[in-house]
Each structure stands twice: as C-alpha cells, then as structure tokens.
C-alpha cells in the first residue's frame, strides 16, 4: 500500500493511520518523506534545574516554535514500512558526528551515515524497515556521542492499517493477543487503537562527561564506560514529577483501553522497568516479534535495547470483588477509596507508578527520591465508559 493510500484511509476515519497521535515527547512528527535533522548543542536543565551541556538533534523545518529547539531525545521519526525516505543530516558542531539506525541483531543497519565532518550535510535514501520500534543515534566514539545526547526513536508503522497489530508479521501468539483484546472475557473493553501508544526513551546522564564535551576535551570511550556514574535518570528527557505528569509519557485510560508502549534505552545503565497495577505482555525485543509472549510485571531494558509492551489496562486483578457487583466495576468496589484524599490530592483517578526497579535510577543528584525514572499509570474510569467519581 502506498503512503498516499494509507493517508487517504486516514481521512475516512480509520484510527490506524492517525500518525499524529503516536505518543512521544520528541515533539516532532514526520509524515513527509523528506526528513532533516541538525546535530547541535544546548544546555538542558535537569530535574533540579542544574544545567547540563548536551549534544542534541534539532528539526530545522519544525514550524512550531515550542518544538523547534534542540531536543534530547531527538524528534521522533515516524514512517510507514517500505516507505522510501530521504534523510538529511547536518553536523553544525565542530567535531565529527555520525548517524545510524540499527536493525534486528545480525541484520544490516537500516541506515548508517558514516562520518559527518564539522559543517557537513549528507542526504541518504533508505527504505523503511519492517514495522516496529527503532533507535537512531550517533555511533561515533561509542557509546560517548549517543549518551551525551545524540539519540532518538524511529517508529515504523505497518503499511496495512486494517490489520490492527503494530507489526506486519506478528507471531501467532502476538496476533492472538491482539485478536483477544476487547473481545474475550479476559479482556473486556476495547481492541487496541494505534492512537493508544507511548514511547519511553530511557536515559542516564553523568554531567562530568558532558562538561568535558562542553570544554572540547577529547573523551576516551573506555574511560567513559568504566567511569560513568549516572546522576540523572530520564524518560523522554524528563524525571520525577515531570515525567510522571507528561501527557506523552504517562499511561492513562479507562479499564479496557489497552496501550502499546515502545521502550528504548539510550543510556548506560541496565534498567528493570516495573509497572504497578497491571502485568504487561512483552511483544517485541530489538525488532524481533516474540513467539513466547510473557506476561510479567518487570522486564529488563539493557543499553540499546528496544522493547515493546502491551499494557492491557485490565482491572487491577487483586482488588477484592465485592458481593453484588457482577460488573466488577471499580466505582463500586473502590467506592470509599475514590472519595478520599491525602495531602490535598484525591485518590480519584486511581494513580499508580511505573518505575525502574534498579532503584538508584529513582534518584536525582544521588538523592531526592523519587525524582528519577518514573511515570504514572492512571485509571480514569470503568470498563463501561463511566468515569470515576470525585476526580480532580
């Protein structure tokens, strides 16, 4: 199917092609085949407002001034499988940089720009790979240039929007799961909608190395790897309260509204991402759609890993079911709790965390728990579409 036809289908209301609603906090969405990114630099305030120098990607064609600045992670590249892409990268800095998008392990790269000299612009044509979650980054002096800020996510959507699975060649078990969502007793509610998607770009920052880059001091990658002590932990560039309340990062919905989460780790630490309130299904790891689809509450994301989850948004299973509530509505089973508040904040809607369980990642500047790698998972209503009372 051609992009034009896919977009036409979108016009007639098929949610599967609502590319604009692919959740991300990169803030830029590419639906055109011509993509440009500049490699630049900026100071980024951490959660404690300490500025850290970072190398960053910037979209020179972004019309929205709120999104036009340098970004870490870089803008999300969103393309359709088998689409022909012209990608232009400009290195505006005064040292060499690169740009690479790896594929599945053991397979050729999707694209590799080699080296871009200071001031150099290169355009490379490539064909979008199979549907899934990819990471782009500067591979030079690995892992230094990536970790100092030059990384982002590329999402590839399948070119058949009628098949409501985010892969073109799902395994039988992944297909069965998507077929069951919203149609079986286990998963009452809705099927998965592509608009119900999030991206979590996990990252770790040791500002001592960023300061060296700012000073123009060469960085030895071996010393970097042995001496990296992460001090800030981010999801989509934010931490703590700010990643928890970021609309593009937090998970929110009614019971029965499943959500896809695309996780990448561009940093240096191995994370152990843990979701409260729901176990999730592990759909794909490093572009390999899983045959054995585990349902777990915690799953590792190693540096450079890409992991896709399906969060079923099932009723948190261990809330007691009260007598005389055959619909198992939470507004009945949690009626008293929904009416309470603590510290001036209501218990309605029902808020839970997602956080990394390698708990050092929950800190900022070595303390200040929980201003680290955390976000919210919020239930706002029941499976029949009725919002919870007392929200606010």
């Amino acid at each position, binding site marked *: 199917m051609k992009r034009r036809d896919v977009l036409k289908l979108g016009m007639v209301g098929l949610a599967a092609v609502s590319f604009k609603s692919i959740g991300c906090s990169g803030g830029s969405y590419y639906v055109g085949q011509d993509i440009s990114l500049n490699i630049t630099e900026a100071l980024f*305030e951490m959660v404690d407002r300490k500025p850290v120098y970072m190398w960053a990607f910037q979209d020179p064609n972004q019309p929205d001034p709120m999104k036009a600045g340098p970004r870490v992670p870089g803008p999300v590249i969103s393309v359709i499988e088998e689409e022909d892409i012209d990608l232009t990268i400009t290195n505006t800095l005064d040292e060499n940089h690169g740009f690479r998008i790896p594929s599945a392990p053991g397979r050729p790269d999707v694209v590799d720009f080699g080296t871009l000299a200071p001031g150099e612009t290169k355009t490379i044509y490539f064909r979008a790979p199979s549907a899934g979650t990819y990471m782009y980054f500067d591979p030079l002096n690995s892992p230094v240039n990536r970790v100092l800020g030059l990384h982002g996510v590329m999402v590839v959507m399948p070119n058949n929007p009628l098949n409501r699975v985010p892969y073109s060649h799902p395994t039988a078990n992944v297909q069965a799961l998507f077929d069951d969502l919203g149609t079986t007793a286990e998963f009452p509610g809705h099927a998965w909608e592509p608009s119900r998607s999030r991206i979590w770009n996990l990252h770790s920052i040791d500002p001592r190395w960023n300061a060296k880059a700012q000073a123009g001091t060469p960085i030895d990658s071996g010393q970097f790897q042995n001496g990296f002590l*992460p001090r800030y932990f981010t999801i989509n560039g934010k931490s703590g309260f700010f990643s928890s309340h970021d609309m593009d990062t937090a998970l929110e919905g009614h019971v029965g509204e499943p959500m896809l989460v695309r996780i990448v780790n561009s940093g240096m*630490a191995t994370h152990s991402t843990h979701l409260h309130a729901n176990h999730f299904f592990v759909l794909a790891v490093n572009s390999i759609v899983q045959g054995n689809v585990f349902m777990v*509450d915690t799953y590792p994301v190693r540096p450079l890993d890409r992991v896709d989850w399906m969060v079923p948004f099932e009723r948190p299973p*261990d809330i007691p079911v009260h007598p005389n509530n055959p619909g198992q509505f939470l507004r009945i089973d949690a009626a008293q709790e929904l009416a309470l508040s603590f*510290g001036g904040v209501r218990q309605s809607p029902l808020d839970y965390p997602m956080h990394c*369980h390698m708990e050092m990642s929950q800190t900022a500047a070595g303390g200040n728990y929980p201003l680290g790698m955390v976000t919210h998972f919020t239930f706002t209503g029941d499976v029949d579409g009725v919002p919870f009372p007392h929200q606010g």
Partner: protein
Amino acid sequence: MALQTIQRDLVTPEEEVKFQKFISPPKDNPDTPDRLKPDIEFYRKLMVGVDLNLPSRLPDGTDKVKMMVIADDAPKNRLPEQFPSPLIRVRQGQIVHVHADGGQDGHTIHFHGIEPTPMNDGVGKDSFEIGSYTYQWQPKHSGTYFYHCHKNTTLHVELGMYGPLIVDPPEGPGYVTGYNLPGHLIRYDVEAFWAADEIDTRWHDLQHNAFLTHSGHDPNDPSTFTSDGILNDFRPNVFVISGAVRANDTTPITDSRVAVKAKVGQTILMRVVNAGYTIQQFSFGLDADVIAMDGRPLGVPPTGKYSAPFRLSAGTPFRLTSAQRWELIMRPTRTGTFPASVDYFDWVTGKKLATARSQITVA
C-alpha cells in the same frame, strides 16, 4: 553564539499541591476503605534493626552489617526478627489483611506483583505513608512475589526491608500452578526460595531519611527542597542469597535456607527473585523447566495463553534484573551434588562483582 538553555518544566500554582505530595507524601492512619472480612491476617512492623553477621571481616574490620527489616508483629507466636523479612504465604482468592505499623517515621509496604487499589499498593506519592494501616488485597493469580518498603525505596530496600511472598493455588503448599493438563497443577516435594541480594555497607551508616526531598518550598527553586547524596552510587561489598552471606567466590553456601536437599524421583520447585540492584545470573546444575514468571504461569490460560514453559538444560545461565521472579521445576534422576550459583554484575559497567555458590544435593 551563546548556548541556548532548555528549561525544565515549571510547576504551576495549580500543580503545586500535587508536586509537594509527590516529593514528600503525607503520613496518615486511615481506616481501610472498602474493607471486607479477611480470610487471613498478618502483622508487620517496619524498620526493625537486625545484625547480619559476616563470615569474615571486611577490610575495614567490620564483622556485621546493621540491617533494617520488616518484622513480624503478631500479637502472639511472634516470629523472631530476621533478614530477609518473614514469609507471607496466602492462597489464591483469599482476602488478605496485613496490619502494618510504620512507627514514628512513616513507611509503606508494597506487595510487589500484587495489584490492588492505590491505597493498598504502598506507594506514598500515590496514596500516603503509614503510621498504622491495614493493607487489603485478594490475589487472583498464584505464584512467586515479594514485599518491600516503598519509601525512599533506593535506601530502604537496600537496608533489608523486604521479604518473600507466596500465593499458593487453592490446593495449598505442595502444589504450584504450571502447564500440566488437564488442571495445570504441578505437585512438588521440595521447595526453595532464593532471594539474591547485595549490600553496600556504606549505605548502612546512613539515616533512613538520608537525601530525601522536603516539602513546603518553592518547586521552581530546587535549592529550597533537594538534598544531594550518594544513592546513585551503588558499590556492593557483601553478597547474599536469602539472608545467607557468601564467604567468597568459591565456597558454597550450605545454609539450609539456600542449599537444596532432595531425593531421586522427587520434584523440586525453585522460586528465584532478584531482590537486589545488580544484574544477577543464575545457574543450576540440573535440567530445569521455567514454568512461571512474575506470578504468571507460562502456557496456562488465560494470562499464559500466549506463552509456553521452556527447558533450561543443566548449567544454562539466565539473567534477572531487580524484582524479576522465575519459578523452575527440577526433577533429579540421579544422586549427586549439583552446583547452583549467582553471578552479580554491575548495572552500569556490566562487570562481574562476585559469585555466590551453593548446591543441590540429591540422595
């Protein structure tokens, strides 16, 4: 050209109450809402000191580590204070009440993998920290879990505030839910629970509130509420399995909490949790079937409909990161002493830090 500064988001006046609660949750003693009559009850007291004796002195002369645990607090037949904290064992479908005493300081209990309402989930910023409270939940899925404090979690779990949690199928101990037609029950004879952990003794000299944020200040001026520290810098120097300290990389732990004894023809159920902050690589010298992960049996509908159990041949290593739990079934066919071990790897450098060894003795 001057460098552009990308500002952190600002906290608006409308968001300030939520922000203050996020960084410094309130302490409270509410009645359990939506309370039902319990089928089983437990009592727990947060942050009780226990000494962990070391098999040999550390370079600085230390021969014990001060642990802070979640102690049994039952009105009668109280269990001794221990590290890890005492087992909570319930059956699928029971209404569970855990009466918890958070003491002066305020703590919480999170039952990891159990999925109740936020007030019963033990996360302060999403509810409150406890003075005293009765946690209520009703486990829908049997399996291997653990429980831990969720306040200043980085430090509190490291100090020892965690313990094992088992949800048995309705048939009770001796049975585990796993792929096995027609009823998906597997009977076992010998059960082991490995909670592998590491200790950074520097952290055990800290106050439990070390490096916490404090509320009541300007959210947009972090210098008014932050405390910087060392909790990003984890350098474990003591390595344990289920509270038993390894002496060195080669000497097997023979402690009965860790070493497994079985007979030919028996079925061993091995429950494994990474209760630490390193990457842990487990290896068992017997063929093992991985039958469940994180309290969800593989291949057993409805949650395991899309998965299948799989075989690890003897000695095949597998890695778990913090809080992952696997259940393995082993059926020894010959007598002997079979190795069992955990390698601990740094979460950033990936370097091996230590090995803890034990064994499975088959008579």
